[in-house]
């Protein structure tokens, strides 16, 4: 039972990571129709920036500043590279971000070295929460809390701010939003920055748990894709659900059949595609 509990908790944490990654990806796909292959590398950059910043501003400072810098970096990349391919065949945006991912990975390797690095976290966070629940450190609880705050923040941003509302409207009907005089190009840039912020945040949190290495984002990108596919096209709530679902499913599978842990998320995807092709919360007619 304890093992199940442990893995359930673990699954929620892993799922929370998938959610952070997948929400960022999903935002960009919904508004710009670009699958950002380099999203995992934005995550790594967020983590490495935190590593560099921690000695000066501490973990707490880095937790805030590093995602912001990642967002700025994302904004810059969108301006310089990504925006040139919006009007073109989707294959170009895939290839572009695919190549970008290669470049960023080598850049991280060049700046911070190829060997794994640890990210120091405050002592209080590395303690277990109780004697009996020794397997759950405060850091894990903290991570889940940060993810909850970030996700709530994102949904509030989309609902209550002007830019957020425009992003949501643009997701539903870009032509109309454009016809209403909204600057779609700028909107896509902001949106890309928001997505990058989420990746950067995930990077800091992940670095505190598993440390840093140049390809740390690679293992997270595929589950994020699956979270989006399972959750449903065009639905952020769906992505949220999809991420948690596959995180928990993978963790629980570990209890009973460890070798199948990675396979199970693909199985879930196949089942969803078979019986509900538009995904759990995908909208009818948005099978594009």
């Amino acid at each position, binding site marked *: 039972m304890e093992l199940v509990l442990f893995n359930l908790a673990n699954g929620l944490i892993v799922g929370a990571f998938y959610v952070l990654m997948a929400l960022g990806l999903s935002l960009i796909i919904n508004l710009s129709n670009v699958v950002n292959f380099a999203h995992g590398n934005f995550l790594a950059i967020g983590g490495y920036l935190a590593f560099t910043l921690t000695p000066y501003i501490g973990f707490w400072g880095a937790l805030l500043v590093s995602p912001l810098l990642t967002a700025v970096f994302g904004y810059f990349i969108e301006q310089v590279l990504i925006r040139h391919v919006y009007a073109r065949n989707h294959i170009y945006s895939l290839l572009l971000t695919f190549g970008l991912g290669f470049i960023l990975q080598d850049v991280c390797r060049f700046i911070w070295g190829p060997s794994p690095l640890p990210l120091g976290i405050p002592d209080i966070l590395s303690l277990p929460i109780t004697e009996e629940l020794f397997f759950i450190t405060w850091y894990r609880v903290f991570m889940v809390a940060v993810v909850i705050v970030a996700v709530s923040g994102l949904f509030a941003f989309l609902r209550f701010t002007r830019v957020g509302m425009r992003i949501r409207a643009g997701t539903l009907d870009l032509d109309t939003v454009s016809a209403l005089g909204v600057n779609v190009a700028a909107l896509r840039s902001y949106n890309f920055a928001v997505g990058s912020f989420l990746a950067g945040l995930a990077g800091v949190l992940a670095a505190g748990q598993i440390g840093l290495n140049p390809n740390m984002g690679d293992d997270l990108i595929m589950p994020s894709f699956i979270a989006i596919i399972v959750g449903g096209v065009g639905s952020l709530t769906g992505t949220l659900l999809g991420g948690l679902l596959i995180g928990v499913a993978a963790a629980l599978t570990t209890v009973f059949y460890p070798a199948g842990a*990675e396979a199970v998320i693909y199985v879930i995807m196949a089942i969803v595609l078979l019986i509900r092709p538009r995904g759990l919360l995908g909208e009818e007619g948005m099978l594009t």
Partner: protein
Amino acid sequence: MNENFLSRHRQLLIVWALLLTVPFWLPMLGGYTALAGRVVVFALAAMSFNLLLGFTGIMSFGHAAYFGLGAYGCGLFMKFVTASTLLGVLAGTLVGGIAGTLFGLLLVRRRGVYFAMVTIAFGQVCFYIAYKWDEFTGGYDGLRGFARAPIDFGIFKLDIAASNNAFYYFVVAIFGLAVGLQALILKSPFGRTMLAIRENERRARFLGIPIEKHIWLAFSISCFFTALAGSLYALLNNFADPLGLNYIMSGNIVMITVMGGMRTFWGPLVGAVLFVALQDYVSSMTTNWMFFVGLTFVAVVLFFPRGLMGMLQKRAGT
């Protein structure tokens, strides 16, 4: 259509003259024939992929799966069933092709980036299976323990095991049959519906073409050919590599196609030449090969999106 110096017949003549004389001129340029074998195998994979991307307008980003399944299918068959090279190639082609046909069923209703995402995910499934199931597939180290054997045609024996040149001509012969068949498909009524779907899916649907069925069939055909290329890839080094199943390999196939020219028949072959040369050169020059390969991807997308053949034809044509 376009009466220019790159007319279809002339292209055909140039391509085959160059391919058939490789063992004579490549060593003079400092290359070796096995390198040319790699080019031809990648070219076949990319041309098969291009049936989808360039001619049906459908974007798969997971063709490494069918390529890799072909390689493993061929290798496993030769290792555990019988050491016949031709039967191995057949087995690999069937394994990859049938897997693609089944996956295709789940794919056909998706479009655009979602189609790409699902194909990537399916590709990774195959990668994980090859990676995890080590007692059978060799896991991370790849599959060894099989070797191409001489082929006995009765009248004469083609020793593809000992002679690199003989093996090269074996690969080129299969390549010729495969792309010849592809050309016939593209010229058929079915091939024209592929073009129609690429050009305007809505119109095609309103003509009464059952789009989903056609995309499925095109996907399936493309996977069979890609798996054939994968089988040959396994014979190239007598080795099946799990990285041949990885999404990075899928990206390479896409890149080869785009770099050469995705709207042209021979573009992927040209792309394969460029790609293999670049890969060979960069990996011998620097350890930061990812950086340079990535840079090439970005540069091609931003500055040469039509690919080399596309640019040549455009210049010569209109």
